């Protein structure tokens, strides 16, 4: 940053002010000192110099950026960059000794069935969770915006109590993922959990089971909780987007004889597509990161067996439980690549021409 300042200093100094043709010697030194001195200690002579204004500005910029950049650089940027390097080493994480092994970690991944299982589960969540969550979100939002009785000749009206629904639907979103994980862990409990009890009381006792202990069902439970958490968020988001669509557009569609479902797919959905598209990417990233729920809710954090193991949990276990930090960061790099590819694909294929209204 110091270089920048000096360069700018020179720029402003080129048209020498008239009254100050002969700058006293040492003024340049004082000006440089003013960069670090607080304004109070700066000599008045320097303060009256024309160049002082830009020095004052750059001093401010430097001071204001220094702390945030320092914190950000040390604790976010540098670990992030280091991760790429560590992924090429055989570092255990326990000691400071490690050797450079090139791409060994990555080739080891190819034969690691646990790793592939985790990727399979993560990608499954990545694909299914946004479909279910955004589908439900759109459905509820449309119901809230357009499912009401037709009052006062209005073509479209919201459901009575729409505000109440939005408040309640949003509950899971304000709670901690840790709380959600513990609550649903208890919900699925075979003895004290209410899910089996409900099934029995409605005569579906045969469906009652030990949900999280069944390898075929456990991942579905994780998927369900993931969707449960986010539906309310998308209801609120999509309601806001739908609310900003002018009412006349919907009215015109209705006058043309379109039913509600036609209106939804032909009119509403295209108009809010931008929001849906962004939400899709966001939900996908959330699904890839399903760490806390799996870590808290499932048996042995990813079990039974490997049936709910997702990539972030696998990474965490490798790094902190078995001491394979180098290998774990390599898994992290792969996860980053998956995230990037997902985002890029969504950006390329989900985009539509923006509709102005």
């Amino acid at each position: 940053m110091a270089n920048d300042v000096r360069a700018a200093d020179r720029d402003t100094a080129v048209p020498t002010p008239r009254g100050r043709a002969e700058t006293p010697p040492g003024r340049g030194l004082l000006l440089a000192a003013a960069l670090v001195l607080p304004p109070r200690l700066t000599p008045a002579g320097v303060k009256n110099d024309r160049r002082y204004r830009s020095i004052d500005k750059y001093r401010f910029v430097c001071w204001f950026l220094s702390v945030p950049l320092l914190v950000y650089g040390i604790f976010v940027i540098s670990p992030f960059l280091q991760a790429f390097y560590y992924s090429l080493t055989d570092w255990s994480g326990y000691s400071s000794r490690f050797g450079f092994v090139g791409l060994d970690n990555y080739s080891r991944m190819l034969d690691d069935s646990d790793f592939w299982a985790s990727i399979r589960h993560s990608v499954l969540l990545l694909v299914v969770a946004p479909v279910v969550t955004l589908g439900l979100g759109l459905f509820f939002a449309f119901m809230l915006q357009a499912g009401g009785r037709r009052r006062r000749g209005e073509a479209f009206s919201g459901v009575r109590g729409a505000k109440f629904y939005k408040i309640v639907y949003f509950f899971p979103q304000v709670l901690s993922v840790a709380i959600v994980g513990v609550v649903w862990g208890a919900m699925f409990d075979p003895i004290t959990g209410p899910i089996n009890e409900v099934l029995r009381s409605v005569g579906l006792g045969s469906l009652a089971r030990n949900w999280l202990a069944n390898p075929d069902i456990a991942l579905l439970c994780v998927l369900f909780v993931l969707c449960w958490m986010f539906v309310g968020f998308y209801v609120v988001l999509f309601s806001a987007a739908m609310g900003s669509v002018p009412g006349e557009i919907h009215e015109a569609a209705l006058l043309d004889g379109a039913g509600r479902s036609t209106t939804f797919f032909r009119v509403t959905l295209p108009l809010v597509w931008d929001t849906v598209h962004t939400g899709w990417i966001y939900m996908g990233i959330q699904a890839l990161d399903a760490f806390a729920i799996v870590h808290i809710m499932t048996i042995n954090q990813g079990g039974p067996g490997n049936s709910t193991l997702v990539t972030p949990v696998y990474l965490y276990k490798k790094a902190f439980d078995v001491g394979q930090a180098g290998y774990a960061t390599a898994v992290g790099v792969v996860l980053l690549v998956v995230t990037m590819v997902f985002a890029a694909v969504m950006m390329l294929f989900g985009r539509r021409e923006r509709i102005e209204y």
Partner: protein
Amino acid sequence: MSATKPAPVEEAATAPGRPVGGAGEGPRRKHGKGGTLNVFSGAFLVLWVVMAAGPLVWVMVNSLRESGEITGNPFGWPSALSLENFANAWSEANIGTYTLNSLIVLAGSLPGTMLLGSMAAYVIARYTFPGNRVVYLLFAGGMMFPIILAVVPLFFVMDNFSLLDTRHGLIIAYIAYSLPFTTFFMTSFFRTLPGSVAEAATIDGASHSRIFFQVMLPMAKPGLISIGIFNFLGQWNQYFLPLALNSTDEDKALLTQGLAELSVNQGYQGDWGALFAGLTIAMLPILVVYMVFQRQVQEGLTAGAVK
């Protein structure tokens, strides 16, 4: 309430719309087939209310029951209104200590995030200097990558600074990982503010920092509230960073860690009452605050996620 529930709901969702569309009902007919549609949609809306709030209500009701009552009988009202579970959770299961730890960390990290984030954002948004764009992209880029990739090296960076298992270490980590989004959000907010007020202050002789603290920050209040809510919930609910950076000393565990721990222990001890009480202690204040400020919270979070 099974795991496969969302699918049938969604399937049925399109069904009620069909008769209306197929019949080509006139929009002006007042209570035509809309009636059946309303019954269906109303039912689904109510069903999801039960789905969303049911588990939370169930936890709260059970927190007032004795552990013995809960086992084998998930539903039921408390036989006697006893607050014993809460006392147990608060002192014996250490929920009180965990809550205090969470509050201490938040008391440092939230103001720190807001201050550092708006400082950086203000400079980026309103000053031209070489490298402005680079700094902006540096912060904005941080929103893209998963924390989990950085966590292993971060652990050792923190270790080198002797910041592991300390509250101030967690505060710094929270600030650092909240900075990208806070800066990004506040930059676009500061850009929208009119420059004339700041110019007037300059002419009156106010210094740069004085303009920031006394003119621009007060003007940015709506943005600060949105991002403040976002960061408050995000940091209060943080599970991953404390788990990785603060896991050896149980006395320093945060609320989210404590609850996860309690949920494991309860399996051995059968103290369901304490678990439910702990959960209630953790979620009730948040839910109450949310209901009071629900409009701001909803706007803050949705503005925070998609912008």
